[in-house]
């Protein structure tokens, strides 16, 4: 170990005056992140190939005339990097002011999506002045896209292409792409049609990576007017066996939306249409609030829990007595909580001593 605590053979760079180690292939941005040197970005999503579009992550590298984009620039031994020089911070502020100048509004409801506050937060952090560089606005809005899940408000698009890249690189759908060029650039589907006529599977990953709320979660946005704070509860999506981590968003007692957990070990921010959007049943008006027992008349009648459980136990017992324990087969519902699923299998396995237990959405 040398005086900086690095193995002599370990390769290092000088990051903001401090010698830090790097791994082969690591970008300057990744090294800086690991060393708690926060570099702002807008086109970066650590799950995706570095793109180098927003240029906010530029840093000064000794010996290079122009700043370099740290997200695409690999660390090499002895590199001397400064991430927050005055010139760099000025560029960042100017870049943010340029971005703001092409957008209709900055304040968007956080229910639009997981990353929807990124631009707003950076503008505050850099005290970027809105109102500079006024001119035409880019992006043609497409809020008429007829689908119940994804809001497409391209007035707020800043052309970072995270949506296009997450669709291709993570979901493998290639449903959206980049149309035209320069200031006329527009996110599009094939032949600029509706999402539902495209290869889109409505996984919602484009929504959750969008840093401006140009893409919004339509289901969550229904709750925007509820004047309560958003609470997040980490859990696992019950729909199938993959085990995607999610954060359930609630306002008061109401579930208002789902965020994929970016640090979920099984999904790393990915979800499918069910995990992302299918939660209405939880608080749906049609949901049963009391047990029902089918009467002699063939119709359901409200009953107390005691009556209902007695009736069920009766039925189970008869089956077991008549046909044996393997005659019982339990299917847990993907829409039930994990605790219920656990209890169900316990009931079948421990209660009956049979392995005839399954789940409706076993993937």
């Amino acid at each position, binding site marked *: 170990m040398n005086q900086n605590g690095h193995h002599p053979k370990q390769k290092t760079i000088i990051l903001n005056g401090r010698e830090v180690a790097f791994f082969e292939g690591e970008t300057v941005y990744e090294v800086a992140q690991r060393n708690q040197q926060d570099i702002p970005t807008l086109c970066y999503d650590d799950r995706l190939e570095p*793109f180098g579009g927003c240029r906010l992550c530029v840093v000064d590298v000794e010996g290079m005339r*122009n700043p370099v*984009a740290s997200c695409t*620039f690999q660390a090499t031994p002895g590199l001397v990097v400064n991430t927050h020089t005055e010139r760099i911070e000025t560029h960042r502020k100017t*870049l943010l002011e340029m971005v703001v100048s092409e957008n209709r509004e900055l304040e968007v409801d956080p229910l639009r999506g997981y990353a929807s506050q990124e631009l707003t937060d950076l503008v505050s952090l850099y005290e970027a002045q809105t109102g500079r560089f006024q001119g*035409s606005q880019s992006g043609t809005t497409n809020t008429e896209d007829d689908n119940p899940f994804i809001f497409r408000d391209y007035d707020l698009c800043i052309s970072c292409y995270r949506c296009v890249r997450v669709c*291709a690189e993570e979901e493998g759908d290639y449903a959206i792409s980049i149309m035209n060029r320069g200031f006329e650039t527009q996110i*599009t589907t094939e032949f600029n049609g509706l999402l539902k006529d495209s290869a889109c599977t409505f996984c919602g990953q484009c929504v959750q990576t969008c840093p401006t709320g140009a893409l919004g979660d339509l289901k969550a946005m229904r709750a925007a007017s509820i004047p309560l704070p958003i609470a997040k509860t980490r859990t696992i999506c019950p729909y199938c066996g993959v085990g995607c981590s999610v954060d359930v968003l609630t306002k008061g007692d109401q579930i208002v939306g789902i965020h994929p957990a970016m640090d979920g070990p099984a999904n790393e921010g990915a979800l499918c249409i069910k995990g992302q959007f299918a939660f209405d049943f939880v608080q749906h008006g049609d949901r049963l609030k009391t047990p029902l027992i089918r009467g002699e008349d063939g119709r359901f009648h409200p009953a107390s829990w005691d009556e209902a459980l007695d009736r069920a136990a009766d039925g189970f017992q008869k089956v077991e007595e008549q046909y044996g324990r393997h005659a019982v087969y339990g299917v847990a519902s993907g829409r039930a909580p994990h605790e219920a699923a656990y209890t169900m299998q316990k009931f079948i396995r421990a209660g009956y001593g049979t392995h005839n237990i399954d789940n409706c959405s076993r993937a």
Partner: protein
Amino acid sequence: MTNPTDLELIDRWRHEPAPLLPILHAFHDRDGYLSEEAIRTVADELRIPAADLFGTVTFYHHFSRSAPGQSAPRVCTGPICRLHGAETMLSDLQDQGATPMPCSGRCDVPIPVLKGHTTLSGLTAESLTPSRSPLPDPNPAGQVECVFAHIREPDRTSLAGYERTGGYEALTKAVKTLTPEAVIDMVDRSGLAGRGGAGFPTGRKWHYVRTAPGDPKTVVCNADEGEPGCFKDRTIMDYDPHGLIEGMVIAGYATGATRGFIYLRYEYPETELVLTQALAAAEAAGFVGDHILGSDFSFNLYIRRGAGAYICGEETSLLNSLEGKHPFPRNRPPYPTTNGFEDLPTVVNNVETLASVAPIVRHGADWYQSLGLGDHAGTKIISLSGDVRRPGNYEVPIGLPLQTLINDWAGGPLSGRTVQAVTMAGLSGGFLAGDDLNITLDDPTIRQKGSYLGAGGIMVFDDSRSMIEVAHDAMEFFAHESCGKCFPCRIGTTRLTERLNGEAKNLTHDQWLIEVEDLGRTMKETSACGLGQAAPLVTESLVRYFGDEVRKYVENSS
């Protein structure tokens, strides 16, 4: 003759490298435009996601998606053609569905109008006639030339005509008597540097490719001459196609590359024909193909036509375009020398650079070195256009005074006029004016003035021109051609255009200057490629040389 079927069009190209562009062109030529059905068929057959292919097609300016499409007139509205009335021409041809196109590389024969595969030119819609590239005038000062030395020989485009003055002798010498390393060493010692604008030493680039791991290696000729005010590569290819082909094969021999592409801009359809015929002759004579001149060295060459995108002259955009990807520039490093076409080592050289190679191999490094003036090595072709008596291509010794070129070689400004400003590097170098017109044509000198020689396009504007308008048109071009990948260029080129067209009305003169400077600085230092880095040189030099005009303009528009 019946039209070929979709599958016939696709099968013609699908087994060649870089098949997407020729397939799209084949449909575009057959149908007159790219229909949704055509795009879906190509996407299916080449296994490209339909949304991706659709997006990529919309990137290219010349792919029409509706009739009249391919055959409708495209009128050059580049800076020089605007001086000659291009906008009137455009409106006169409106009834034929005419659309504007950025500088189409014929500033020596205004105003070019492209109709299908034919270039017409004339100053009015009535006077349009088929147009040929003018031959460069004999060197006005009797200077020894490199690239143009034999270009005026009759029948130069045929193999026999080319061989009459030593054609393919350099290739023969290289393959039979020199090792690849010796060829690289010779090019290195000659001082030849990239003539497309970047000025990177050619020998060093070749060395990097030769020693980079990975096969097959590729030589790409950047013939996407899209820089406004540049028309030299077209002249070279139109009159000396074998000079380019020989240079490419030598580059292949030196670097160990076995395949090459000429990426030709859409606006040069006649040139494609010249190249295709020359390539066929060179193949038939055994100068291109397998076992060249009986050796173990094989090199196959393909011509690929662009579809209207200035950014595809940026080498990594060009490579993405060849590969059928969205033509955004790539992040560098890594460079094409290690990760080029199909992620393999690739030389990307400009037409003029490659056309200089055979003469260097024939006459030696010292000979080429000595062609420059003073300490400067070699020659540079300057495309001179605008308000001068004899616009055209001139091969100048590097280090020649600009005033000598304009006044002695090209006859000076028009009668009763004086030169107000010139552009450098086509448009990318911004303007030079005043005392800075007394420069010599070499990069160290020009860079001291905050500009660069680049691809060698120089447009002359006399005292009758409004430099605000010229600057506006220049910035509008950059905004039109910005690819949209990086923020500073995509937004900045549009904001600077707006500040030159009277739209930013609520700015005081001071605010205007600060905004333009702030935009320019961030574009210059943080843009991802040369387009965004160079575009603000236009406003920077406008403010530097024409401060009074800027003040008047801003005060009048607020």
